[in-house]
């Protein structure tokens, strides 16, 4: 056996989205459309304090004046913001006290996703905050975290229980005026996660949230806020899958990370939303604003493995404000069929002796377009700033595209910036070599691709890395070229 471009094209068409199923839980949702009334409805539903409602309304006013950005290397039909349901909560609003109380259907969903919480709890000690259609339905390991003074809860709970922390930090890294989608999120966000690590505390387990978009046509507007107080450490995992849908689903999340002096935050994402079918129909629009700020000697690492979504627009960034702070970005972005990804990072060096590292691995298959867009900005006072960027692209076919847009703005002559970029096509010689050793084509590709992404996968916590490898294999099934 072997492959030709034609066979390849056929193989790719036969791919189906493995996680395409819908959980049938009745939901309590707002009417479609966006106006001040809807925002008041959400805020009231969530029993929010006045300041938060004002925050939302101000964001909404700002958003109305803004236009959707056009500069990303992606093409899509703009979502109709009046045709989206902005609030949808599972009807069963009671929080689960124990795992036994959890809706069996929900458990089934998780099982299909291969992330059985029981197993996760037993094997890995991961505390999972499972967000399903905007409302957190299960939170575990809370007690243990509480002992250490660690707060890990849904954003809504945080608003009720830790309003001062939320008020102080929310919008401090991503202002509501930041961009079109961040403004939209600020106006209509429904839930998300909140995490606070007290001074000097090292969080003993990976904090993990599985996001899942479930209700057809429900836009998902998550907000995540992670605050690592002085000298603390936390590793946070975010993973997502979405069921198969015909209409495009919009996802516009905001993630804010705050690493105070000497603190470290590791934020890892595996993103696996429905990418659309072989003809480019359906799929999730993923427009995310992720940003972290590092105070003195603090460190933030973003690691992401992106295989899903029809259109991805995402630039996890670091503001290196404090002297000697460190920002890292490790990314694998896979696109297949008609997927489009425009992703990268921004490293903003404000403090002295700040250091950033960017490792980006793009993999394009089918007819997809994969772009890396990175900005390294060295400000006037950032003496001795260092950056190292490496952007590699791997092409699986002759019909896909890889694009690299590295931007550098340097206002301090003591800065040292290194940039390396490569583009290669997956080697027929490599595949033949594997086949000759008895390894099937699928496995061969999976091996080669995982090897290519190794530097990034190595950054992920062990269990997550295994899942990420599986995802890479699934999303590239049959995509030889």
């Amino acid at each position, binding site marked *: 056996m072997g492959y030709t471009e034609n066979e390849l094209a056929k193989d790719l068409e036969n791919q189906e989205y493995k996680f395409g199923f819908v959980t049938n839980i009745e939901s309590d949702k707002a009417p479609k459309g966006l106006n001040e009334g809807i925002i008041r409805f959400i805020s009231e539903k969530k029993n929010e304090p006045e300041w938060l409602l004002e925050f939302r309304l101000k964001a909404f006013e700002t958003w109305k004046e803004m236009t959707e950005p056009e500069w990303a290397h992606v093409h899509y039909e703009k979502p109709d913001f009046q045709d989206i349901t902005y609030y949808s909560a599972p009807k069963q609003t009671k929080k689960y006290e124990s795992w036994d109380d959890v809706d069996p259907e929900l458990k089934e969903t998780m099982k299909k996703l291969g992330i059985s919480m029981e197993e996760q709890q037993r094997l890995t000690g991961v505390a999972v905050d499972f967000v399903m259609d905007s409302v957190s339905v299960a939170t575990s390991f809370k007690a243990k975290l509480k002992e250490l003074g660690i707060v890990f809860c849904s954003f809504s709970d945080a608003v009720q229980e830790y309003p001062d922390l939320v008020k102080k930090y929310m919008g401090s890294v991503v202002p509501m005026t930041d961009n079109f989608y961040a403004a939209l999120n600020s106006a209509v966000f429904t839930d998300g996660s909140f995490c606070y690590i007290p001074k000097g505390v090292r969080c003993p387990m990976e904090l993990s949230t599985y996001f899942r978009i479930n209700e057809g046509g429900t836009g998902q507007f998550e907000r995540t806020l992670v605050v690592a107080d002085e000298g603390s450490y936390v590793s946070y995992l975010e993973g997502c899958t979405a069921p198969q849908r015909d209409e495009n689903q919009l996802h516009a999340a905001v993630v804010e990370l705050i690493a105070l002096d000497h603190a470290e935050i590791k934020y890892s994402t595996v993103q696996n939303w429905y990418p659309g079918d072989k003809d480019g129909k359906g799929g999730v629009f993923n427009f995310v604003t992720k940003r972290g700020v590092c105070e003195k000697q603090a460190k933030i690492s973003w690691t992401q493995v992106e295989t899903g979504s029809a259109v991805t627009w995402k630039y996890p960034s670091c503001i290196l404000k404090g002297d000697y702070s460190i920002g890292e970005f490790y990314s694998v972005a896979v696109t297949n069929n008609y997927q489009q990804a425009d992703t990268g990072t921004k490293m903003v060096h404000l403090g002295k002796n700040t250091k950033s590292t960017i490792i980006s691995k793009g993999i394009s298959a089918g007819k997809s377009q994969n772009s890396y867009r990175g900005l390294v900005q060295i400000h006037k006072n950032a003496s001795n700033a260092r950056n190292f960027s490496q952007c590699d692209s791997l092409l699986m076919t002759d019909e896909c595209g890889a694009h690299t847009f590295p931007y550098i703005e340097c206002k301090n002559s003591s800065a040292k910036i290194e940039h390396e970029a490569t583009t290669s096509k997956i080697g027929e010689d490599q595949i033949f070599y594997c086949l000759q*050793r008895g390894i099937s084509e699928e496995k061969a590709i999976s091996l080669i691709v995982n090897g290519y992404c190794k530097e990034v996968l190595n950054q992920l916590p062990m269990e997550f890395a295994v899942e990420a490898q599986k995802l890479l294999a699934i999303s590239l099934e049959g995509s030889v070229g």
Partner: protein
Amino acid sequence: MIKIENLHASIEGKEILKGLNLTVNAGEVHAIMGPNGAGKSTLASVLAGREEYEITAGSVDFDGNDLLEMSTEDRAREGLFLAFQYPVEIPGVSNVNFLKTAVNEIREYKGLEPISAKDFMQKVREKSALVELDSKLASRAVNEGFSGGEKKRNEIFQMAMLEPKLAILDETDSGLDIDALRIVANGVNKLKSPENACIVITHYQRLLDYIIPDFVHVLYNGRIVKSGPKELALELEEKGYDWIKEEVDSVNA
């Protein structure tokens, strides 16, 4: 073991193998020699199942199976191994991971359970000692940054791990110094058994001082034009290939 009859193969419309015949029985070592461009690597590639080559005529029987009908990976799983003339690098994939995948795919094909981690590592230690391969190389990425000699030794290590029925060594000796040559040959000799066979493709007779062939064949212009006992290799070494070319060309004229 393998019976090749009237094999014709071409690439990009150019015929390279022009009616090749060769039979190798279990327990035998055959050396194939011949000038550059004669088609030696082509023969190896065609047997291994490289897609670029078009088979225009002929048949190959491999242990009762029609080899040409089999997929590349099934040929390997049935016990055909090619030590590449130019082994490729697979960055980021450790040798052990690569081999474990291969071993388990072959086992699955044969209906066996995956090998246990313990047994596998035991085997790695044993076989890497056999070819005096630095154990560090076993955990490094496949051939990445290996010297020419290390790559060749790694091929023999892989062969030892996979225990093929028929091994084809394509110029495994080229680029090796005398010590490495001895090690590689030693490895091959230790793996020799009445159940398996080996085709050694080489340019020089010096490898055949270490691996004693039962038969020596001369491949020229896409055909086996002369076969003989191991002494033929010495004769070739002494006289070069010109006399053979002349012999063949005069017959054809």
